[in-house]
């Protein structure tokens, strides 16, 4: 009861109140830059609750999804390899930290030069930005296996696949998933930016087109849409994380 109250009811009411405040305060706005919420919502309905959704939003989601997938596969694979070879750390850690510290937007211009302006470039940049937090989290996750546990596995003759399944994976999954959660917003930023630079569709392209042609209600409607998609995806990732943890993590059932 209390959980329902503070988990659902209170946040919903507060959100409604904020939206209501926005509605009232902006109702009589004549500013070109801050149109009334009414106009933004009607633009939202026209732009996104229509067939345009498929042509503008799906390409963006597809790029984020594929980029994240590549980032996860590469990050977990390479991270697990680096994590299990303890001696590799001093050789690769500084480079990894350097790559992670690079602002992802910064690698856009060189990637455009190398990969062109198509989907390959966008997906590549998204993957290249999302991979670092996942990779580093995986290294930590694999590393966090207790030495005693490793000894136990070896003494009792567990083959490496058993040690991976029953000892490394359960320890690493929560770490890996926190890396995925950190990577998702980065992937989003890079998706919008790469579409903003050069594209023929996608949310970033839409924002760029509408803002440069002063269709600001349309532009704001895309911003609202981005926020909503972000909330939905973050929730999905959190739910998936709990599922994974249930399957492989501390509370797994077998």
């Amino acid at each position, binding site marked *: 009861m209390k959980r329902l109250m503070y988990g659902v009811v209170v946040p919903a009411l507060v959100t409604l109140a904020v939206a209501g405040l926005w509605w009232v305060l902006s109702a009589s706005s004549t500013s070109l830059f801050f149109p009334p919420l009414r106009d933004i919502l009607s633009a939202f309905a026209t732009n996104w609750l229509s067939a345009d959704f498929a042509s503008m939003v799906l390409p963006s989601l597809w790029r984020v999804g594929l980029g994240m997938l590549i980032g996860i596969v590469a990050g977990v694979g390479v991270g697990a390899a680096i994590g299990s070879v303890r001696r590799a750390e001093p050789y690769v850690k500084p480079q990894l930290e350097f790559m992670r510290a690079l602002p992802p937007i910064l690698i856009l211009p060189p990637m455009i030069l190398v990969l062109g302006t198509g989907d390959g470039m966008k997906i590549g940049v998204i993957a290249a930005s999302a991979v670092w937090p996942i990779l580093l989290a995986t290294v930590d996750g694999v590393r966090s296996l*207790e030495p*005693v*546990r490793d*000894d*136990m596995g*070896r*003494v*009792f*003759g*567990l*083959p490496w696949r*058993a040690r991976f399944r*029953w*000892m490394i994976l*359960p320890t690493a999954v929560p770490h890996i998933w926190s890396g995925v959660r950190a990577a998702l917003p980065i992937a989003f930023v890079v998706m919008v930016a790469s579409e903003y630079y050069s594209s023929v569709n996608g949310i970033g392209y839409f924002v760029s087109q509408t803002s440069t042609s002063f269709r600001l209600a349309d532009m704001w409607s895309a911003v609202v849409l981005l926020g909503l998609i972000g909330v939905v995806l973050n929730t999905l990732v959190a739910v998936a994380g709990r599922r994974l943890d249930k399957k*492989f*993590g*501390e*509370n*797994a059932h*077998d």
Partner: protein
Amino acid sequence: MTETAGLSRTSPSSPDKDDRVAILEVDGLRKSYGSELVLEDITLRIFEGELVSIVGPSGCGKTTMLRCLSGLLPHEGGTVRIAGEEVTGPPDTLGLVFQDYSRSLLPWLSVADNVRLPLRYKPISKKEAEERTAEALESVGLAAHTRKKPWQLSGGMQQRVAIARALAYHPRLLLMDEPFASVDAQTRVELEDLTLRLWAERDMTIAFVTHDIDEAIYLGGRIVVLTRTPTTIREVMPVDLPRPRDQIATKALDEFGRLRASVFTALGHHQ
């Protein structure tokens, strides 16, 4: 509450003169970390059916020695044989009970699955694995808790799970590495008697590492006393205490007090 333990055994008092089978054979074992010599020329025999206590001052190379004996750590000099096979990696004839039960057990597996896990990768049938698991848990008194997760049990019960896992593995040699160092005194007494009972019932060969002198004497048929690093064997003492042993009666014997003084002295303490 003390149960009578070690029902039908007599302790072998002169280990070298007969034709008993040596389960653990260590000859000239050496190990160093960098330039620091940790183990120096350790030579030791443990025969089939023996329960040998190994004591050493804290900070001596006990852990290193155990890791070398179990094949977890490569040694530099000498040889280690378990059940006749030279140790180059952990042999499948060896079972180990770690001090740190909460980490050596997997919290995401049930008690029964923890015990069964090593058996899944042994060349035995599923049915036999089931039977061994049930039997081992029964013999440590945990038949009623097989579906629980280890963290739902007390420390003493968790260590029983770890013991059951080693029993079900049917090792020729069971190494116990300060197994009761992190449980309370009452539980410790119970686990000591459990160890004696299992050893007697199952004809086991056990090397029991401890830093507790009373525990070493109470359990052991012989006591191996180690020196400080670089660690070597200072003395091997036969324990001529009658079995079955009893927590009160055995510890009240004059011989127990005499042994305690000798081990104490051998460890380098002065009274």
